[in-house]
Structures are given as structure tokens and as C-alpha cells.
């Protein structure tokens, strides 16, 4: 019985500390890169050993490859990605006029594909879509995240903030409970990072492949035993909007490597 009360006391202390903390202070923003082992950092830092570069390579080929139906490649309109796509990933998600909603980079690539190339949309998290997204986002590597200043995005960003702070799942945890209040501490054997989306799509050693931010968010939702949103769900784009605002100023690292 005494042990039980002790546990309740500990739980109360943890509960209070979670309630008391508010977001991230400006000076303490740190990329997930800083929390990794030196070996994994070295893997990301050298382009000849970074496995994410395989997807960049594939994306570069897809960028040049015309689609059958309209016989036009991405490069046909956008030209040299190194110039036209520079900085794009650092300001996405952007407001989409057609759907009156924010749209993420992969969503934009797929909609461009449907409208301009008259081709079938690529499956979410498919290798081709990931390769193109990685290639486009790679052009912004090293640039600071600067979310688009568009007032129409504000209500969606607020929705994202609320999602970030809402407790979900059987474990009753919010994103903020770990990544705002307890970053830098350990969950099991792993360090809890600040959850910045500055390296996506990224190569995760656990996945043995490149994956999207949505895949990562689904992982976390399953981890707290919540029902994850489907790929392409509007909630994910709202959440990404908020995460990008939260990570404002951090340099892009695509393709990052994470454990």
C-alpha cells in the first residue's frame, strides 16, 4: 500500500512538471542531429556514406523523366531544380488555392503530377514519391526553415498546435509531453529529441530506408497506442505546419539520417 502511495506521489510530481512547462525557448532549439551518436552523425555528414543520397539520385532521374500521358517531365516546367526548387522545402506546407487548405511538399508533387503531367498520383510513402520529395527538399539543405507568411494558414497552424498539445491514446500522452517537456531525457534507451521536421524525408536506420514525416508521426501515434491518422490526412498537414513554425530558423538537413 505504501509503495502504491509512493508511486502516486511520483506520478503527481511528473504530472505537475508537464503542466508547468511551456513550449521551447528560442535559444534552446536543437536539431535531432545533436542528439545522435558521433557514428550516426558521421553517416549523415558525408554524402558518400549517407544512404539517403540513393533516394536523391533516384529523384534526380525521376525529375528528368517525362510522363507518358502529357509527355512532360518535372524539368520541362521547372528546369534546373538546383535553382528553381532552392528554398521551397524550407517554407512548405503552403496554401493550396484549389483545395483552400494547406498542402505539404509530397502533396504538391502529387497534385502537380495529376494536373500538369496527367499521370496517376503516386502512392503515399512509395519509393518514387519519396525520391522526388527527397530530391526537391535536398535543394534546400543548409537553408533555415522560414514558414510562409500567409495569414490564411493561421487557423490550420492553430489546429496543428492543438493536436500537438492534445493527449491521445491509451498511454494518454501528447507530443508536447515528451518533446516540449522532457526532451534530452531518455525514454528507454533512446534520447528524446525535440521533434523538429528539418531533415525529412529522412533515412531512418530502424526503417532501413527513407520515410516521410507522416510515417514518423504515425509511428509515434502507434507508440502511444492511439489510432494513427491515414497517410495524407489533413491533420498531418496541420501538424506539420505547426512543427515547421516551431522549428523556425533550424537549417534543413534533407536527407538526414536518424537512428
Amino acid at each position: 500500500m505504501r509503495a502504491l502511495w509512493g508511486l502516486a506521489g511520483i506520478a503527481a510530481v511528473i504530472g505537475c512538471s508537464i503542466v508547468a512547462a511551456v513550449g521551447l525557448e528560442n535559444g534552446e532549439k536543437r536539431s535531432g542531429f545533436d542528439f545522435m551518436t558521433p557514428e550516426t552523425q558521421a553517416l549523415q555528414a558525408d554524402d558518400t556514406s549517407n544512404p539517403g543520397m540513393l533516394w536523391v539520385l533516384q529523384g534526380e532521374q525521376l525529375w528528368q523523366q517525362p510522363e507518358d500521358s502529357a509527355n512532360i517531365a518535372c524539368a520541362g516546367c521547372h528546369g534546373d531544380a538546383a535553382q528553381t526548387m532552392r528554398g521551397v522545402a524550407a517554407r512548405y506546407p503552403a496554401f493550396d488555392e484549389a483545395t483552400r487548405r494547406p498542402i505539404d511538399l509530397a502533396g504538391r508533387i502529387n497534385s502537380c503530377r495529376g494536373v500538369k503531367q496527367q499521370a496517376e498520383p503516386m502512392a503515399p510513402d512509395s519509393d518514387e514519391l519519396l525520391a522526388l520529395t527527397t530530391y526537391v527538399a535536398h535543394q534546400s539543405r543548409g537553408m533555415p526553415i522560414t514558414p510562409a507568411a500567409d495569414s490564411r494558414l493561421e487557423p490550420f497552424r492553430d489546429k496543428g498546435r492543438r493536436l500537438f498539445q492534445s493527449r491521445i491514446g491509451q498511454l494518454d500522452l501528447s507530443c508536447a509531453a515528451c518533446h516540449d517537456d522532457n526532451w534530452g531525457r531518455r525514454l528507454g534507451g533512446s534520447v528524446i529529441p525535440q521533434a523538429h521536421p528539418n531533415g525529412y524525408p529522412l533515412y531512418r536506420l530502424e526503417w532501413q530506408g527513407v520515410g516521410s514525416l507522416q510515417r514518423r508521426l504515425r509511428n509515434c501515434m502507434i507508440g502511444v497506442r492511439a489510432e494513427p491518422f491515414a497517410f495524407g490526412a489533413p491533420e498531418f498537414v496541420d501538424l506539420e505546419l505547426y512543427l515547421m513554425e516551431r522549428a523556425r530558423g533550424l537549417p534543413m538537413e534533407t536527407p538526414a539520417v536518424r537512428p
Partner: protein
Amino acid sequence: MARALINVPKTARRGEIVEIRAMIAHPMETGYRMGTNGANIPRDIIRRFACAYDGEEVFSADLFPAVSANPFIAFTLVATASGTITFAWTDDSGETQTASADITVS
């Protein structure tokens, strides 16, 4: 076209030891995993990697299911003469993917 990243120095002095790096996109499926409904995912790995310098094999490696996806292999060569270094990865179905790079030795 193989999705491979190879890193060979463009130039080298005669007799210099140069580092060669090769990485290829490959799932390296072990054959021990189960997919949906308990169906076995068939094994699909690269069995052999070989590197030839001007047609002569100078390095090779046998790979096994424990090797991770997108295998990365680094090794050193002695630069003897200008020529082409070719890389070949052979998988379970017997198919070979190749890549090559030139080196100039002065």
C-alpha cells in the same frame, strides 16, 4: 540502371593507396520475416559484390542475410595505372547490377 553511389578518386599518384566506396540501393530481405497474414517474405539479398580494376578482379565479398539494407562497402586499392574500375552486385535471382568509374593515375 543501378541505383548506386560509388566514390573513386578522379586522380591519384602511381602506387598511392586510394579508398573506394560503393553503396547500392537494395532491400536485403532476409527471408526470415513474415508479411501480412503470416505469409513468408521471400529472401532477396545481394550474394556477391566484386570490383574489377581494368578487367582484373581486385576485390570481392560474399554477403549474407545479416547485412543491412543498402549495403555500403569501403576498401582500398593501390593505384597502378589509369583505367576503369567496375563494380558488380549479384543478387539471389542471379541478376547483376553494375556501375563504373574512371581513375587517372599520373
